[in-house]
């Protein structure tokens, strides 16, 4: 697989010009899992214009299917009454929407400017190595741009749970916790009760 940091998906794939463009799917012909249909309809009801629900709808579809697969887009399009191409255009734009079947969970390691200054690259490499060594599967492990937690740099987000500050020595425990679906580094998550930074004198 090409490095997607450098080459966006599909950059070298030619269009199939013989194919007809996808139309708005007929809702009667598409089987949509009930929970997904309910989630999308609820999102559409919250906005004055139902198209505003595109992002929440795709996020729900991703939760059900693990990624924004062609089937997931087709089902979402059937409920929202838009073309799959439109949804695909949106899904390819946003970093958190997966357009490849990499895994249904994520482990984002921030290596952006503030974390870079605190040696985040080494932490990421240790985690990536550990993930390979332990054979971690079904998890999207990757470097991520600033996650908005530079106070706990270097840090990572495990399915939305922010943990940090991390050292290379945390990699083994972190990856095995993710693999065994345990809570990652208990007590060191941002939302943990009583969480405080090692140097902090107050709770804030």
């Amino acid at each position, binding site marked *: 697989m090409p490095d997607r*940091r450098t080459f966006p998906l599909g950059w070298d794939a030619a269009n199939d010009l013989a194919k007809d463009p996808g139309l708005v799917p007929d809702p009667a012909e598409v089987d949509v899992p009930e929970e997904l249909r309910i989630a999308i309809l609820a999102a559409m009801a*919250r*906005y*004055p*214009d139902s*198209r*505003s*629900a*595109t*992002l*929440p709808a*795709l*996020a729900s579809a991703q939760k059900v299917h693990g990624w924004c697969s062609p089937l997931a887009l087709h089902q979402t399009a059937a409920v929202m009454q838009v073309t799959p191409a439109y949804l695909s*255009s*949106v899904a390819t*734009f*946003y*970093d*958190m*929407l997966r357009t490849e079947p990499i895994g249904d969970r994520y482990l*984002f390691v921030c*290596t*952006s*400017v*503030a974390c*870079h*200054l*605190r040696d985040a690259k080494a932490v990421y490499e240790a985690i990536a190595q550990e993930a390979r060594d332990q054979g971690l599967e079904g998890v999207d492990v990757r470097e*991520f*741009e*600033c*996650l*908005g*937690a*530079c*106070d*706990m*740099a270097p840090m990572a*987000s495990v*399915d*939305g*749970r*922010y943990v940090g500050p991390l050292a290379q020595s945390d990699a083994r425990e972190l990856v095995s916790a993710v693999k065994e679906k345990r809570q990652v580094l208990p007590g060191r998550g*941002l*939302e943990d009760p009583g969480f405080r*930074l090692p*140097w*902090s004198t*107050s*709770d*804030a």
Partner: protein
Amino acid sequence: MPETKVLTANLHEPDLHTIAVYERLGGYASARKAALDMAPEEVLEQLEASGLRGRGGAGFSMGKKASFVPKGTMDKYLCCNADESEPGAFKDRLLMQKNPHQLVEGCIIGSIAAGANRAFIFIRGEYEIQAKILDAAVEEARAKGYLGEGIFGSKFDLDLVVHRGQGAYICGEESALLDGLEGKRGNPRLKPPFPANQGLYQGPTLINNVETLCNTPAIIEKGADWFQSIGVDKSTGTKLVSVSGNVQRPGNYEIELGISVRDIVYGLAGGPPEGREVKGFFPGGSSAPVLTADSLDLPYTFESMAEAGSMLGSGSIIVVDDSQPIVPLALRLAEFYRHESCGKCVPCREGTNWTVKTLERIEEGEATPMDLEIMAEVQENIIGNCLCVLGDSMAMPIGSMIKHFRPEFEEHIEDARAGKDREAVPAFGAGELAAAAEAGPA
């Protein structure tokens, strides 16, 4: 210099995120006052008189912005920009996680001032916990009748929706945020028309940062004069400053605008690690031009940072100590903007890419001093030539790095080239020398 706590005064209270605790501490009194006892014009007047400036980056007067929203019966909107994605910024995360009702109350007050009946909080997708906390807060406020039809028993209707992004820095740009909210790719729009005239769903829209809106309840409660009395000149009020990078105590600190940068970096954040010196710092997030240690004694205000050739931006200070080489930092910075460029405007899409490639060449020892000139020129050609300021946000710091640290860039180019030459052509007799060294002294 200690912190001045206004926004964060109650953060130590347990369970502040619940409406019961927030109300016990006087919460929602300002929103009630604005809805029942004040005319919308009075609310707007107070906000304008307070001198409150936008805390998201541009530093534009919040009251003035709200006053640009036309009057009339058309649908108007308020959008809270909670897409905090700027490297170095993490203040909104704290405010939303610990004190979500303060933001909900701020949204109510902002909506009353702008006459908006629908409000949205656009929160970045990575903030999963914070989005859940906000959702719960909105539900609590709705159950109490503070949101929905006839808020606080007045004739004013207000609906508030928490909208989650899915990971795109560009959605922090106000017009791209609107596209993201309309369910499209987050591409910035041509301005004018400005969002205040034609924004979300083509209607007049007021867009404010989380911290800006969080400031409004206290202004309504204590008055514009009280707010004016904090801070200096046109930088009124307190500011939540996120300090990160090479300091001993990174974190959020609330300060009165006008204290010196040194007081923040050394006094509050503990300064760089033992034995290290400050080499430079970004005074307002990674998009702000870098300043050197010479600027540490300047007061931290919108004006003085602008005079020094940088900006206060979102109030995020990233400190770089003297152990950090400048080229990898510049490369990491440029990579961020290349990744986040939406690709709509050529100078930004190509310029960020060129900059990354040039910096990579420098790292790999393939650059010549001329590349530095080309890179500086590329930056100049990005600035002011795009629909939004994402490209400028890379061009300005990179340009400032070349300006302040040119000798280091040149040295890096030479060192990397020399290193590459050594690798490529082993020095004559190197093999024999190595063998001799291994054998030890004769």
